[in-house]
């Protein structure tokens, strides 16, 4: 679990760290959207250049990102293999039963691979440079329009920030209980599948028990500080949109325009 970096936050003071979380949040989704505009080597090159520049700006070591992707590599390769083997092409290089290999399918596989990398890098960048609290603020403000359809935005936002607040604590608790049970002779992750599944009972039951007791204590503590419900509360953390955030939008617009030109202008 230590190796996977998706969802972590690394403190820093770079340009990316200081961007408005709302902008970063929407920007990430927007970027995942425009990745599907890419259809040639040039377009992927452009996107890679853009992602690398963003990573560079975040001040986080590139090798760290690459190592973070490593646990996911089998999933990615599996998908890429499926894509390669099952895409029919005109110039068949090799075929057997339902599998076939062609230049087109190889290129397609490469595209899919790059698409995966781009999406993972970019979304990891969001979580690495944004604190969980900022992220939940961003989600709350992005969800605000949903109030029109009677969606309980404030409650959901509170739920989110409480959930995020307790992720590290529950992780610590998990490690602690795991260690305690290990000291009592449990072997996590060894033996037959059934044995492995059973070895998680001494971990999960204490975790559930402590989660419920945390929830109960927290609810009482919140009520005793005057909390009565989601509405009519003020906000202490205010998000501020700055000039740098406008620059980010400009960067996205430029990339989009370049992508469209490369896709529709050059080839046809």
């Amino acid at each position, binding site marked *: 679990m*230590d190796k996977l970096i998706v969802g972590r936050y*690394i403190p820093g003071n770079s340009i990316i760290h200081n961007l408005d979380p709302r902008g970063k949040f929407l920007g990430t989704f927007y970027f995942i959207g425009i990745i599907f505009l890419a259809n040639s080597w040039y377009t992927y090159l452009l996107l890679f250049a853009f992602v690398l520049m963003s990573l560079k700006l975040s001040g*986080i*070591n590139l090798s*760290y990102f690459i190592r973070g992707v490593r646990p996911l590599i089998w999933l990615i390769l599996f998908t890429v293999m499926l894509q390669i083997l099952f895409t029919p092409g005109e110039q068949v290089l090799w075929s057997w039963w339902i599998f076939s290999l062609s230049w087109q399918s190889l290129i397609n596989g490469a595209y899919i691979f790059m698409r995966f990398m781009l999406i993972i890098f970019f979304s990891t960048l969001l979580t690495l440079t944004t604190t969980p609290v900022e992220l939940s603020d961003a989600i709350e403000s992005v969800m605000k329009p949903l109030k029109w359809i009677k969606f309980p935005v404030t409650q959901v936002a509170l739920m989110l920030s409480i959930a995020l607040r307790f992720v590290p604590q529950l992780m610590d*608790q998990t490690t*602690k*209980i795991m*260690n*305690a*049970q*290990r*000291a*009592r*002779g*449990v*072997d996590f992750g*060894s033996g037959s599948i059934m044995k492995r599944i059973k070895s998680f*009972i*001494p971990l999960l*039951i*204490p975790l559930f*028990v*402590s989660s419920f007791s945390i929830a109960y204590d927290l609810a009482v503590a919140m009520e005793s500080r005057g909390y009565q419900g989601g509405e009519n509360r003020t906000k202490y953390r205010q998000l501020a949109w700055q000039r740098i955030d406008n620059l980010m939008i400009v960067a996205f617009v430029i990339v989009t325009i370049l992508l469209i030109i490369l896709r529709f202008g050059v080839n046809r």
Partner: protein
Amino acid sequence: MEISFKQVGFIYQQNTPMENIGLEDINLTINDHSFTALIGHTGSGKSTFVQHINALLKPTSGEIKVGEKTITPETNNKDLKPLRQQVGMVFQFPESQLFEETVERDIMFGPMNFGMSEEEAKQMAKKALHQVGLPEEYLEKSPFDLSGGQMRRVAIAGVLASNPKTLILDEPTAGLDPEGRLEMMTLFNNLYHEGKSIILVTHNMEDVVNYADDVVVFNHGKVAKHGTPSEIFADEQWIKDNNLELPRSVEFMNQLKAKGLKTTDNPLVIKELIETITNNI
């Protein structure tokens, strides 16, 4: 069981931006059958240190010897069970490790993992429950129906039931009432006199002077001082510089000396303090 650390270092999350030093260059020997107290302010490496003794953490450099077993950075996760049976570990707030339906089954969990038969484990559970001072009818109860202090006792019984030679206690009395504290500490002291080695992590200096015969002071992941309680508490200035406290009797004696009581004795516990005062008035 003798425990020796040779140039042990430990780094949390090595090779990541969150890299963080836990222990640095630890050279230390804890003798067989000793009552060792580990003190030092929060984050000084005490808990990290004790987790190395039964290989819950493995050093990133150096070598640890626990009895016959040697732990190095390359030590395999297999074959650690005998070690963990010999080194029992009571974590902070150990009540959070209870999970079985009855107290008896929870206490039996450790012994059975270490290969005892069900009969033996039942015997051990009964004995351990008695040791921690709970009546036998608790065996059939659910651990979640007990009070916090009783859960703590059951959890400690669960560790004692495997009959470890060395017992590591990470602030075992945190959050207990004064009576519960005293009972627990007396229990550990008795276990020590029955022949077990005790390693106690604590912030309570009274416990150190009352029970320990060996003290290790940690500071910033290093061993700052190692000696008997009287050696450790002899230098008042050093104790203050390391954000530690003096035991009450030492503090009181120092005040008396400042007021003019003439003696060279340095009583550590209340009983000695009373003797010193009566002998010098």
